[in-house]
């Protein structure tokens, strides 16, 4: 997949290291963080750990470079992006979270909104999957995380049908790999590249960047 740099509009020609079985959490990071948000974060982290998913956020990596580009790369590296929608999150921070959910959806990531019962989600997100942080949250969220493996199977199955369209098939395999962490899918992508006669392309070509995940 070609990713364009949001700062200058040129294509990114360096590979983005994959973070399989990671969840990019979008919430308020700067102090003061309301207690309610700390609680949501703790529960999300705990439930993700139960299914071997690691939670990362914008403060997880220090690059010394542009903050927005770092967020893009973190979103692109992980299979799942979760945004929190809460009435105690200041409006500018909440707007940033919605922007990042949009970026994640455009990059083909699994997205989920965790909302407090009193929070209102904008109309553009009414079709985005959400889970309310209420007394059923643990069950609902765990159920969502477990459903991701079905989605990974689906992506692999679609990739298997698309061997005449190797770049698209490889992109589906990458998404399946990020969710499942199954290294077999990496080998499958490399095999597709060879079968399509694309293995001799430049190391930073679209084809090689797509397959070297």
């Amino acid at each position: 997949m070609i990713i364009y740099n949001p700062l200058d509009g040129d294509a990114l020609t360096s590979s983005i290291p994959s973070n399989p079985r990671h969840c990019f959490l979008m919430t308020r990071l700067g102090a003061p963080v309301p207690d309610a948000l700390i609680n949501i974060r703790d529960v999300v982290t705990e439930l993700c750990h139960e299914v071997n998913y690691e939670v990362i956020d914008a403060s997880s990596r220090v690059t010394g470079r542009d903050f927005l580009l770092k967020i893009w790369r973190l979103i692109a590296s992980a299979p799942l992006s979760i945004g929190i929608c809460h009435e105690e999150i200041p409006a500018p921070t909440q707007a940033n979270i919605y922007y990042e959910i949009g970026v994640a959806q455009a990059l083909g990531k699994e997205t989920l909104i965790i909302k407090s019962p009193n929070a209102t989600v904008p109309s553009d997100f009414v079709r985005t999957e959400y889970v309310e942080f209420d007394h059923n949250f643990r069950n609902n969220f765990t159920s969502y995380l477990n459903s991701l493996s079905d989605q990974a199977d689906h992506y692999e199955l679609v990739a298997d049908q698309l061997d005449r369209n190797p770049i698209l098939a490889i992109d589906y395999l990458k998404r399946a790999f990020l969710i499942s962490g199954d290294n077999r899918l990496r080998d499958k992508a490399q095999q597709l590249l060879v079968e399509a006669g694309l293995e001799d392309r430049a190391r930073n070509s679209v084809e090689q960047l797509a397959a070297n995940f």
Partner: protein
Amino acid sequence: MDCRHRQDGNAVDQSVGFSPLLAFKSIHAYCTELEYISVSGYSTGNYIIAFGKKDGTYAMPTKKPSGTNKTTGTKKRDVVQVKNPKSGNYVKIDRAAGTIVSHKKSKGPYKGVPVARKSK
């Protein structure tokens, strides 16, 4: 960007679809007096085509199936369908062309199209 993604997680292939221009050219080949053609039903995939002269003669509505994945003549295409667990709907894939042909809007599989399953 070589592929974009829909809400249900499947890539969008806009190269497969109904072309009003091609429809007009096809119809125009039979009747050179045609002055207009209008097409509706993009959202449902059940296209309603109205064409004729501006004075109202020849105007006749007709229904055209999307038909991009139909068997044409004796050449059979390698088309399968898979179920998207997120949307619960089926996705039709042309294996020979390597394209995602269409997404079913309603529940249930496409008729007459084999369902691809993961090999064990």
